[in-house]
C-alpha cells in the first residue's frame, strides 16, 4: 500500500455513445464527470470553456454524468433531462442551461428549459416521468465509480485522472503535456 501512487485510469474509454465536442481525432481527450447541481462544477464551466478555446483542435471534450443525489436531490433528474434533450440533438445547449440555472432544477424547470430550447418539451416531460434515461445516467455513474471518481467535477486527460489544481493554467498545462506526449 505504501510506495509510489499512480492515479486511477478510465475503465471505459470515450466512444460514440459519449457526448463530446471538438475533434473526433486529436491528441487529447478530456473527460469530465460532472453533476448539474454541484456548485463546483458550475464554477468550472467558464474555466472549461476557456480551456476548450485555448486547446482548439487539439482537444476533444467529453461530459459524463456523476450525480450525487444525497447532496444534490435534483442532480439525477437534471442529468436525465440532458439525456432527453440529447435525444433531440440538444445535449450541449441543455447542459449549458442546467449549469447556468442550477438553483432551479425541479422537473417543471427542466421541461421549461426544453421548451425554451425549442425542442419537443412534451417528449422530455414524458422521458422524465418514465425515467427513460435513468439507465444511461447510471451507466455513466458506475463507469465513474470504477474509474476512481469520488466527487465532482473529476477530470481525466487521455484516460488518466487529473489530480492537480483546478485552475485554468494548471489544467491547460496538463492538457499541453498530454498533447506533447501523444504527438
Amino acid at each position, binding site marked *: 500500500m505504501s510506495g509510489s501512487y499512480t492515479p486511477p485510469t478510465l475503465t471505459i474509454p470515450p466512444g460514440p455513445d459519449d457526448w463530446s465536442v471538438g475533434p473526433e481525432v486529436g491528441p487529447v481527450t478530456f473527460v469530465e464527470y460532472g453533476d448539474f447541481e454541484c456548485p463546483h462544477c458550475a464554477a468550472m464551466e467558464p474555466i472549461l470553456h476557456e480551456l476548450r478555446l485555448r486547446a482548439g483542435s487539439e482537444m476533444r471534450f467529453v461530459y459524463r454524468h456523476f450525480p*450525487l443525489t444525497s*447532496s444534490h436531490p435534483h442532480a439525477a433528474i437534471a442529468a436525465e433531462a440532458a439525456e432527453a434533450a440529447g435525444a433531440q440533438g440538444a445535449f450541449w445547449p441543455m447542459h449549458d442551461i442546467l449549469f447556468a440555472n442550477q438553483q432551479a432544477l425541479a422537473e417543471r424547470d427542466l421541461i421549461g428549459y426544453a421548451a425554451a430550447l425549442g425542442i419537443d418539451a412534451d417528449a422530455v416531460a414524458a422521458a422524465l416521468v418514465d425515467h427513460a434515461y435513468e439507465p444511461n445516467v447510471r451507466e455513466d455513474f458506475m463507469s465513474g*465509480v*470504477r474509474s476512481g471518481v469520488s*466527487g465532482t467535477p473529476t477530470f481525466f486527460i487521455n484516460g488518466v485522472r487529473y489530480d492537480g489544481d483546478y485552475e485554468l493554467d494548471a489544467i491547460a498545462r496538463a492538457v499541453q503535456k498530454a498533447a506533447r506526449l501523444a504527438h
Partner: protein
Amino acid sequence: MSDPQDPFPPGAAAPDFTLRTTPDQSISLSELRGNPVVLVFYPADWSPVCNDELAVFNQLLPEFARFGAQILGISVDGAWCHNAFADARGLQFSLLADFEPKGEVARRYGVYRDTDGTSERSSFVIDPEGIITWNERSPVGINPGAGGVLRALEAMAGDQEAETEG
C-alpha cells in the same frame, strides 16, 4: 509526514471493535460475521460537499446490497457529530465514532495520523469470516473513490454473477 505503520494487511483477521453508531447504540464488528463488511476510514465529518467519497458510497448502497455487504464509515468524530452529519448529507449507512479512546480503532488498523489527530482515508474489505481481503490507503488530499472496494467485493463473490452491472 506521519506515516508510522502500514495498514493492517490482507489475510489477517480484522481486529474486532465495539463502537457507537448513535448516542445510544453500538455495533461490534463480530456481530456482522456471515456477511462481507466494508470499513471506510475517513478523516472527519463535514469535509467539502461535492468531493465526498461518502456520498459515492451512499449512492452505491444498492450495489453493496447485491453482495450482502454492510458498509460502515468510521472517523474520530463523536456520535452526536455523526448524527448531524449523516442527517445533513442524507447518508443511509452507519458512521462509527472512534472517539473514546480517540482513534483507538484507527490505530489498531494502522491508519491513524498522529500529526493530524485523525485517521487516514483508508478502506478495508472484510470477508464473512472476519478476514481482511483487501485494503487501500490514499495519499492525503486524494479521494480514492469506491472502485477498489467494488472490485474487491466482486473478487470475493468469485464467479457468482458478479460481473453483471445493475
